[in-house]
């Protein structure tokens, strides 16, 4: 079971990682476009549409990945104080009440939304001859499906947690504040901090 969970996690992560590179592409694309427009005086009419599509694809496709790494913001006032079992119970109930219907509806609606777009070979109307927009609209149901899948994994996680009393493990990923890495970056070692402690104690003694 744990293996299956981790496999689906890996799929979400892989998709998320793959689409993350869009931000690099987006940076280069816009930088080039800015250069091309202001220096070479040669703007591209499709640039705006492509920018938006890259951004939109990036954010929706990273949704499942973010969920797999529990990166979606949550109110931490009470949640942090709960025991894992309580946390899992609350999560389980709310996944079933809010997540499943919400994301299912989004995927379902997104499917028809994209299908309509495919049916008429819709093109962007921002500029006169805009690029095709149906692949972009397809991203919404696709992202919804991945998110739904990941949501089911999270539900199973909750069930396991309720049974075992502790959360099953997750795969590691880059973290925003990785203290060890930051320590290494500025060449600070744990001993240095420990040595510093004496100063704090001394100062406390003086008062």
């Amino acid at each position: 079971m744990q293996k299956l969970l981790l496999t689906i996690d890996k799929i979400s992560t892989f998709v998320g990682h793959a689409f993350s590179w869009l931000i690099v592409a987006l940076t280069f694309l816009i930088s080039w476009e800015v250069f091309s427009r202001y220096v070479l005086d040669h703007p591209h009419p499709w640039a705006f549409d492509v920018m938006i599509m890259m951004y939109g694809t990036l954010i929706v496709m990273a949704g499942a990945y973010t969920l797999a790494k529990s990166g979606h913001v949550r109110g931490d006032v009470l949640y942090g104080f709960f025991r894992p079992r309580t946390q899992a119970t609350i999560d389980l109930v709310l996944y079933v009440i809010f997540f499943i219907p919400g994301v299912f509806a989004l995927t379902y609606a997104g499917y028809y939304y994209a299908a309509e777009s495919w049916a008429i070979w819709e093109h962007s109307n921002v500029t006169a001859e805009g690029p095709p927009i149906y692949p972009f609209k397809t991203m919404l149901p696709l992202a919804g499906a991945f998110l739904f899948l990941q949501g089911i994994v999270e539900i199973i996680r909750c069930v396991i947690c309720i049974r075992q009393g502790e959360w099953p493990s997750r795969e590691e990923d880059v973290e925003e504040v990785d203290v060890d890495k930051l320590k290494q970056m500025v060449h600070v070692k744990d001993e240095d901090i420990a040595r510093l402690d004496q100063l704090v104690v001394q100062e406390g003694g003086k008062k």
Partner: protein
Amino acid sequence: MKIRRELWFGFSLMAIIIVTVLIFTPWASLFDGHLSHDDLGALGLLMLALIVVAIMLGFPTAFTLMGMGVAFGWLAYRSVNPQIATQQILDLMVQRAYSVMSNDVLIAIPLFVFMGYLVERANLIEKLFKSLHLALARVPGALAVATIVTCAIFATATGIVGAVVTLMGLLALPAMLRAGYSVQLSAGAITAGGCLGILIPPSVLLIVYGATAGVSVVKLYAGAFFPGIMLAGLYVLFVIIVAKLKPHLAPPLSEEERRVVLPPISQALSGRSRNAVAGLFGGLRDAGLPRRSVVGQLFVTLLPALSIVALLLLVYGGATAPVAAVDTSGLVQAGSGMPAEETAEPSSGLQEPPMESAADSAGVKEPEALGTAAAPVAAPSAAAPRVAPAQAAAPVAPAAERVPAPTWFWIVFASGIAALLLITWLMNWQRLEIFKMLLTSFFPLAVMIVAVLGSIVFGLATPTEAAAVGAFGGLLLAGAYRYVAARQSHRPHPINATLRDLGGIMKESSFLTAKTSAMVCWLFVGSSIFSASFALLGGQELIERWVLSLGLTTVQFMILSQFIIFILGWPLEWTEIIVIFMPIFIPLLAKFGVDPLFFGLLVALNLQTAFLSPPVAMAAFYLKGVSPRHVTLNQIFAGMMPFMGIQVLAIILLYMFPQIGLWLPQLLYK
């Protein structure tokens, strides 16, 4: 199990809300499906109450909002036409989601976030802190001031509170403790400084607010600039005053800590003349010294002078441009105040490095002159965004006569020349070293920030374009610093090593960017579905009617709303507050005649306070994670309190004198 007090409090609050909800739910009409107008409004309020409960329970907010929005929206549609209600709510949902996906304001978020992660990983904070520390060595409370300035600059470029606080906790806290600073003051300076990135543009918070409230991000950036600087300035002022009044809390630095080590060539030349410029010119004729490095040093020494000359030429070009471009010259002049203000502090410190003899005391005697001299030092950073207006002005009417230079130009010219002479005269060997350090740490970052902000604020580029170019600049910066590091540590094939490093940096940064922006944007998807349902149910209307029935004056309304936002800042993150609650406040603003732009600035300042208010202040926990064992959370909280007081003072100041925030946007976008 012993349930903690916090839990009791939370649960009883929830119980109260749920019981109220159950009592007031129009059950009867809910089941037969015939909801009257008032029933719907009541449902809307219930929805709001429930969302507070659900958020407090700790479920990912984006999906709570989405699920609840769908359910209640369906109820609202069903009361009108049960047959097509399902189709309607699905349409609403997908359109809302798609509008977030194709939002041309939110697109700047991943780019700015990406830029932040890249700059963070460029690994320049160590150098930045060290050079600022030396440059500010004469100021009372030098280390704390240097900490705040470093934080302000670094946080502005990165915008990541956790990383800035952690890094400064690793760098500045040991330095301050070793210098005998009190734990409280050190902790306060680090946490308060680290949070400045929330407010000072280019900040993600302002983009999110702009997208929610429909206020132009450009105006918000222009408006938040001076309040941000003001807040940083107040922090610095506070530290200086504390250091003056209670020297035992922040003792002055010892001679040892202030000493600048001179490289051999400077030592050799310092016998010749105390002045670096004269010494280096003399060194040119000295055959005993490596000529190339003398010329190199001389070039660095003359950089301020060169940039002042370049700036004067540009201003002259702008001032004497043909009549059609008169507006532009005003623009240029207005702009000159801004970057100078930003960099004035660090660079005035530049003028005051350790002085060893009385002969050198001119700097002490002429503080005012130094102040004016400081401004043009900032010129190199200001030059970049200013090139374009001046150049743009020129081709407007090439046939027209150039106008003679106005009087103000000659005043600028004279002060520029005076500054030039003063800098040249004051440039001794220690200052030269400090200047070189600043040149490699402070100025690149400052130039980048000013270029990004300047191009946005002066309307040369959209925030998206500026963010992308900023991210590209961040990449170059990271590459340059890694390359220098690789060269210095004598790794084989420094270019290959740098490229490999850069690949790793790009990979990590883009993964983190994907997670952060997905988090913000899915929250947006959820909240826009939610607020659409809320409006459908008429909850908005009900709240409006209720607030108006209170008969508040504008001032009362402002105080009340800011107070509510402040309270919400405890349990919720700023993203949640803005995307969920701003749509409720914004329509009320028009009724009270409050400018949404001004309101946004107040909200941004206010939410920053939330980062420093115990017991939930994230900054404190980040600092605690890297501080020595005996530094307690209480000490950190105690250190943060005065800075929190300053923030409240800043909010009041901004409210009393709205011009602090509104002057720049009004000037630029009349």
